[in-house]
Structure formats: C-alpha cells, structure tokens
C-alpha cells in the first residue's frame, strides 16, 4: 500500500476556527503518501442548524457535496471533522431508502450515480496507514510527553453509524499517539461531552462540561489534551479563561492529533501551526524534553548496569571453565562438575534419613 488517493472534504471550520487542523492534516497526509483531492466547490455538510430543522434539506446539502465529487470522479471521501463525517454518512445511509432519496433528488436534481463512502482522517490513519507505518515515520519522538486522548461524542458514536472502535472506550487515538512516542495516560472522560454547541442556547453549560474534562486531564497528570474535532478543540482551548473563572484552575494546551504527528514527523513549523492554539503548547514541549532527558539518563544507567552484569557473568563463566580444565585432565570438565553436584545432593538426602 504505497499511496492512497481519496477525495477530501475540509468542512467549514477548516477554513476558519480549525485552520491548524486543516493545515497539519494536509501536511501529514502528504508525508504519508495519502493523496487528497479536494472536492471542487464543496458546500456545507448539512450539520446541526440544517439537520435539526429538516432532514431532507440537510441530506440535500450532503448530496450536493457527493455530486460535486462525482464531477471530479471522486467516490471515496475523507474528512477531518467528526460532525461533517456524521452528517455525510447519515445522509448516505438515509438515501438508501428510495422514498427519502427521491425527496432529496427532487431538491438537488442531481441523482448520485457512483458508490460513495465517507470516513474520518483518524480512521484512515489507523486502518489504512496503520500505527506501524506511522511509527516508522517518526523523526522527533514525543517521548516524555504525557497526553490524554479526547475523542468527543461523535468519533465513535452512534455506534451503528460510525462503526469505528469501541463506542464507550475507544483506543484508536491512544495507539496512534503511542506510535508517536508519547506516554498515553488512561483517561476516563475520553468520550464525555465537551459542551458542543450548547454555548449558543446557554453560556454556562459549556465551560462547566469542558472544565470537567480539563480538570480530569490535569488530575491524571497530562501535559496536554489531544483532540480530533474542531468544536471540541474550541470548547476546550478557547474557553479556558471562562473555565478558570468558574474555579477550575488548569492550563492545558489542546492540540489536534495531526499537529502532534506533524511535529513528530519533523515537518516545518508552519505545517504543525501550533501558533494557532490559544493556550501555548511550548511549555508542554519543554517539559517533555526535560522528562525525555531524564528517561534517557535512566535508560543509559540501566543499560550500563546490564552490561556490567553481563561482563561479570562472562568473567565468572571463564573462571569456572579454567577451573574445570584444571580438574578434568581429559577436558570433560562440565560433565564432572555435573556429576559432583548430583553426588552432593544424594549426600544431603542421605543426611535427612
């Protein structure tokens, strides 16, 4: 599997609030040989404001995206945003029903002709590229970095739609971050609600829910929270001032997993785009480097101790061989030593009696 060619749907946040996700995704895909063909003149996926109003109108938006893909000969599409993923996939599944699909086609006037699939960037990384190949690309290991992965509500749920990883305790991102060299801490709130778009109807809800996640991340000792969703990232990163005002005193950077991949692959700084984060990530990296140095020193010490042990063992073996040679004139030292040992044991047995 040398190269993968897929259609690419950046989603609206990729052009604005999650520019760093978009940039690092493209850079990392380039590095891993994933050819991204952006769907020409794509439009809104049909997310929350649309699907909560009318499912057919929402599906019509999604359907136009796929129709645009067909114009460029694109059937299989990936997207970094879980919300886009969910909408595009739900639209495809609903359109398997001929009645529903007729309603959508009446709106778009563009019936779909090709087979379509939609998956997340994370899913492609884990399932198609694989953690081993990712590990092989790492040039600047994240050794010493303590991270918690945060999947949010949509990456693995609803289970029947997403069909990816364990819905309640997913581990795909854990494995990927381990491949980058980071230390992944057990994180019980990895699929908890970040507050989503609740900040629109009620401003108090989001900081409370996002604060709970940050608080737990801090409590388990994480340097940062790794995310895969633009809305989660915004709630967890942008609102830390509000969260601190609510009494939870945690300062944690919240990068996208693709940004950490860009750093581990030693891609240019502009590709990782850490400068787009609200909470500064550099202190976390500084901490990582100190810890990595400590770990390496420990490892060197342990290796030296191991080598010393091996040397002593070899020395003892050599001495024993020398002795055996002196004792046994015909050179069957080992055998006679064995015989001696057995005899000793028999003697001891006799003593018991």
């Amino acid at each position, binding site marked *: 599997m040398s190269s993968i060619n897929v259609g690419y749907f950046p989603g609206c946040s990729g052009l604005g609030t999650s520019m760093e996700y978009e940039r690092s995704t493209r850079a990392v895909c380039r590095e891993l040989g994933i050819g991204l063909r952006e769907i020409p003149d794509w439009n809104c996926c049909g997310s929350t404001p649309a699907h909560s109003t009318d499912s057919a109108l929402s599906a019509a938006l999604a359907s136009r995206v796929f129709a645009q893909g067909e114009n460029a000969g694109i059937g299989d599409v990936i997207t970094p945003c879980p919300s886009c993923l969910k909408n595009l996939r739900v639209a495809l599944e609903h359109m398997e029903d001929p009645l529903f699909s007729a309603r959508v086609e009446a709106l778009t006037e563009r019936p779909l002709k090709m087979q379509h699939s939609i998956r997340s960037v994370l899913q492609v990384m884990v399932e198609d590229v694989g953690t081993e190949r990712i590990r092989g690309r790492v040039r600047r290991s994240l050794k010493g970095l303590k991270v918690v992965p945060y999947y949010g509500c949509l990456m693995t749920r609803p289970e029947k739609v997403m069909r990816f990883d364990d*819905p309640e305790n997913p581990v795909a991102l854990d494995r990927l971050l381990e491949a980058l060299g980071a230390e992944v801490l057990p994180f019980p709130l990895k699929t*908890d609600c970040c507050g989503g778009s609740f900040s629109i109807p009620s401003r108090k809800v989001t900081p409370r829910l996002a604060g709970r996640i940050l608080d737990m991340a801090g409590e388990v000792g994480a340097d940062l929270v790794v995310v895969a969703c633009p809305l989660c990232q915004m709630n967890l990163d942008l609102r830390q001032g509000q969260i601190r005002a609510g009494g939870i005193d945690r300062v944690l950077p919240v990068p996208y997993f693709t940004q950490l991949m860009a750093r581990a692959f030693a891609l240019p700084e502009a590709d990782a785009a850490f400068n787009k984060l609200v909470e500064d990530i550099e202190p976390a990296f500084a901490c990582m480097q100190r810890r990595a140095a400590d770990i390496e020193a420990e490892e060197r010490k342990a290796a030296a101790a191991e080598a010393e042990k091996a040397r002593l063992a070899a020395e003892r073996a050599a001495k024993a061989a020398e002795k055996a040679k002196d004792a046994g004139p015909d050179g069957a030292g080992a055998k006679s030593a064995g015989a001696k040992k057995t005899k000793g044991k028999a003697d001891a047995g006799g003593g018991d009696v």
Partner: protein
Amino acid sequence: MKIGVFICHCGSNIAGTVDCAAVAERASTYPDVVYATDIMYACAEPGQDAIIAAIKKHGLTGVVVASCTPRMHEPTFRKAVERAGVNRYMFEMANIREHVSWIGKDIEANTNKAAELVRMAAAKLRLDRELKPKSFPVTKRLLVIGGGVAGIQAALDAADAGLEVVMVEKQPTIGGKMAKLDKTFPTVDCSSCILGPRMVDVAQHPNITLYAYAELEEVSGYVGNFDVKIRKKATYVDWDKCTGCGLCTEKCPSKKSYDRFNEGVGPTTAIIIPFPQAIPKKASIEREYCRQFNKGKCGVCAKVCPTGAVNYEMQDETVEVKVGGIVAATGYDLVDWKVYSEYGGGRYPDVVTSLQYERMLSASGPTGGHVKRPSDGTEPVNVVFVQCVGSRDPSIGRPYCSGFCCMYTAKQAILTKDHIPGSQSYVFYMDIRSPGKGYDEFTRRVQEEYGARYVRGRVSMIYPKGGKLMVRGADTLMGTQVEVEADLVVLAVGAEASANSSALAEKLRISYDGYGFFMEGHPKLKPVETNTAGVFLAGSCQGLKDIPSSVAQGSAAAAKALGLLSRDMLDSDPQIASVSVNRCVGCRKCIEVCPFKAIQEVDMRGQPKAEVIETVCQGCGLCNATCPQGAIQLSHFTDNQILAEVEALCRF
C-alpha cells in the same frame, strides 16, 4: 369402515374465523364418513361424552377430531375413543386452530383449508390399523444433573421416597450459586446455614450416589431405560484416600490461582477445597495453576499429604449408569458484564459484581466478612448499587428480566448497613420488581429503616476520580442528572443460561429457547416436564428464578419422576418402525441414521438384515425415509398413509 368427524369451535378460537358447520357438512361427503358434526368444546366433558355417544349410536370404527394441535389434546381424545371401545390408534386429529384459525382472518379461505385438513385426516384414518402397546420394565433410578439447590431438593425428595438417585455436579463441590451467598432474602437468614445441612444429607443419604467434578458425556436409550455415561474429571487427588484435612492447600506454593468459588475476590492455591462446608470435602488440583503441571516440578502437595492421596498421573474416568428418568437442574451463569465499557469493562478494581460482593459479605469469604475496597483494602462509606446490568437490555441480546436482582440488591444494601453502620447505600434501579411473599415489604424496609437511597434511572457512566468512583446517571423521577461519589460500586449483574446448556439439551434431546433456557412441556400446565418423556426440569435452567421457586420446582420434578418410576412396567409406543425382511438388502443405511441405536443387524440364512429393537425405537421415521428399498415402514405413518393424505389434498 365407519368414520365420525367432529369439528371443534374451541369457543371463538376456531369458530371466530372458520365456519365449523360448513366444514362438518363437507366432511360428511368424504369416503367412509357416516357422521359429521360441529361441537363447542370437543375436549370438555360434554364434548367427550358426545363423541362417545356418537360412536355407540352410529357404530363408528374410527374418529377424526378437527381442533387444536395434537400436542395439546391427542392423548385426551385417544382416551375418549378407547372408553367407547375403539382402539386408540383408530383416531386422527386435524389441527385447524394453530394451523388455520389463529393465523388467518379470511373466513372463506380458512373454512376451505380446514375442510382440506379434515379430508386428509379422514383419508389417513381409512388406512389406520389397530395397534397395541407392549410393556417393558423400568429402571428405578433417577439421574439429577446439577447439584445446586434445585438439584439437591429433587435428589433428596426422590431419595427419601425410596428411589435410587445419581447426582452429577460439574464443580468439585455441590451447593451451586446458593452456597456462594451470604444471606438470603427476604428473611436475611444465613444461606450456608440452611443449605449446608441439605448438602450433608446428599452426601450421607444411602440412596444417593454423588459424582462431583463430573460431567454428563452421553445419553442413549429412552424413558424408563436411559444409558448414561458420566465423565469423572481428573482431580489428581484420590478421593477415597483424601480426608479433607487441608494440609495440601496450606502448603501449596502456587498462591496466585483464580478462586472460582470466591469469584476471584482474593487469590487461592492450585490445590483447593473450595470452601469449609464443601461436599464432598475433598481436595482437587486446578491444573492450569499447578506448578507440577506447568513447570514439571514441585510435588509439594504429594509430599505433605498424610494419606498419599495426590496422584499427578490421574486420568479422566468414565462411569456408565442405567437410569429410568433424568432431572436437569443445571442453573445459570452471570452475564459477561465486561461488555459494558461505560462501567469500566473490568478496568476499575472497585467495581465488583453482586456475587463478588456476596463473597466479601460472607464470614467464610476471603475477606472474613469485612467489606473492603479491592483497590486499597479500606472500608467504603458510599456504596452504589447498579441494577439491571445485563438484564432488560436488548442492546446486548438480554431483553429479559433476571427476576431476582431487585431483591438481592435490597438485601445487600441492608447487609451493607449492618456491616458498616456509617455507610450510605445508593441503588440505581429501573423498576423495583418484588412480587413475592414478603418481598415488597422488604424493599420498603431497606429504604425506610436502612436509609438506602433509591434513584430511579440508569447509570450512564462510571469513572475514577481521585481514588473514588464517580457514578453518573439519571434520576428520572426528579428529571435531573445525578452524580454520586462512590467508594465501591456493586453491579447487579443479570443472569443467563449456563454455559454449554445448548450442548446438554442436545444430549438430552430436549428443546431450548433462543437464550439457551430449557423448554418446559407447556408454559403453564407442564412446568417441569419436557417434550422428551422421562426428562424433567428444575430450577433456573428452565428460566431464571429465586431460591424458593427453585426449591419448589426441584420438589415438583421429583414428584413427576416418582410418578413415572413408581410403575414397574411402562407401555411402549406402538408407533414404531418395522422391517420387511423380503425387501431389506442389508445395506446398513438405517443403522447409520438411527439416532437411538434402535436398529441392529441380524443374520437371516446367511443374509444380513436390519432388525428394529422395539423398546428402543422412538418412531422418528428417519430410517423409514432413508431406506432405499422401502423396506422399513413406520406403524401409523406408513408410506401408503402419507400418500393417501397427499392424494386427498392434491386431487386435481
């Protein structure tokens, strides 16, 4: 031949969608039918009397009743015609209820179909011959599979009535799940104190032979004369020599073995006596943990055993027993709750199952009856009980209610307060199901006197935080979300049919439902019989039930078995296969297909021929269909009779 036809209304069950009078009228035109009528309830006393009267009045020599399934009332009507002096096999039934009236609403179509079914039955009846049963002797010995409380009750009742009983238990001790419980609801009396003496009775009863750590290997034969093979699994300890002194369990160096009896609360040794009151109180070696087997050296138990009972060379042994009846009492297992990743899926040590909690509460358990958090050994203050974990949950294929969890949870909440007076219990529940004698009062008592806080709602998530467990759920009565900080969480894990129950059912040739529970003969009227003669059910293997119901069903199964085995002779069913030696070419195909080993090869003037062993044949008809020569005929279902039915149906 003079045939009488009776079309049953079954109240409105049949008459609601079948024109019974029209069916009777059409039946009167069928060959040999001299009398046809419709009747309100054929099975009721006036109905049976009417059939008998008609037989006498019209001199009938054969009877067709069109009503329900023959599973329901064929024996009833056979007895009725016999009372009128007609051979019981000169009777046919047409099923116009389950096969017609209950499945369609089109009266015209239903009436036509009913008339056709009656035509087939009458056509078959014309070729019926009088059959006479033969009788055979009965083996007056009962096999009880499973030594839980239901099996124990069945065995003791049967043995006390004078029957010989063989009990097979797959674990090294009898006692089942009840032996693991600390107390029982709603009386909160000590479980082992009431069960222990019964277990001793089983061991000491002169009529009971106990095979513990053994499994049923094979069953052949038939009601009254089953041949059973029991595999005694190797315990690596000669139980004739073992005195149960326990020295080996003290000295065993492999101290990290999984403790099956204590549900893994604390480790145990590789050679074990499951618990102090175990019956039989004998040691056995768990091979997977034993150093002698895994590393090839150790032998400590063999050295310390004062009677030299340990034998690492021991092999499984097969025992063959002949029994007349079988009681299956194989109980249940807990659902694998680890599918619930939202409850930690086993990642959090302080989330335990209800059965593990019982072992913690029990004075003879690994914690000596002290409730301690498995993670750090401290005493919990806030204990949260989560009900319906694996019950009433279609998402994991367990949509049914396990029946006893509401009650044992209430009991455990009471015991928690008794053990730790300063504790506070919370119970998350869906509905409190307590329909038993004194049960609802009990669930009130735990809330009103013991202060357990009952929260109506499901728990969505359990997660660790700062050494505690946060239990997040809904309070659907208050319409709010709740989060409880718990020191210990006890999951009321639901129950399912015991592992391999389907394999056992196939050995016993009984049916089981989609969940693996054994099917009773009739959901209301035959709760302990199965559709296989001579096989009875007791306890949770038939459907989940609590201790009182299990005991009641154990007694009921014993009563049914005693009824069967009190007879010296049983009538054999004459609806069996027979071989026409002129046609048989000795190809042995019938011998190969017979599931009952009822056909043997005999030599007839130098020619091999098949011969049916009449008492073994169950009349299943496999040989009949297999025989390439048409040499085997099944009495009452001959090829000619089946063809007559086909021809009656496909006339044009």
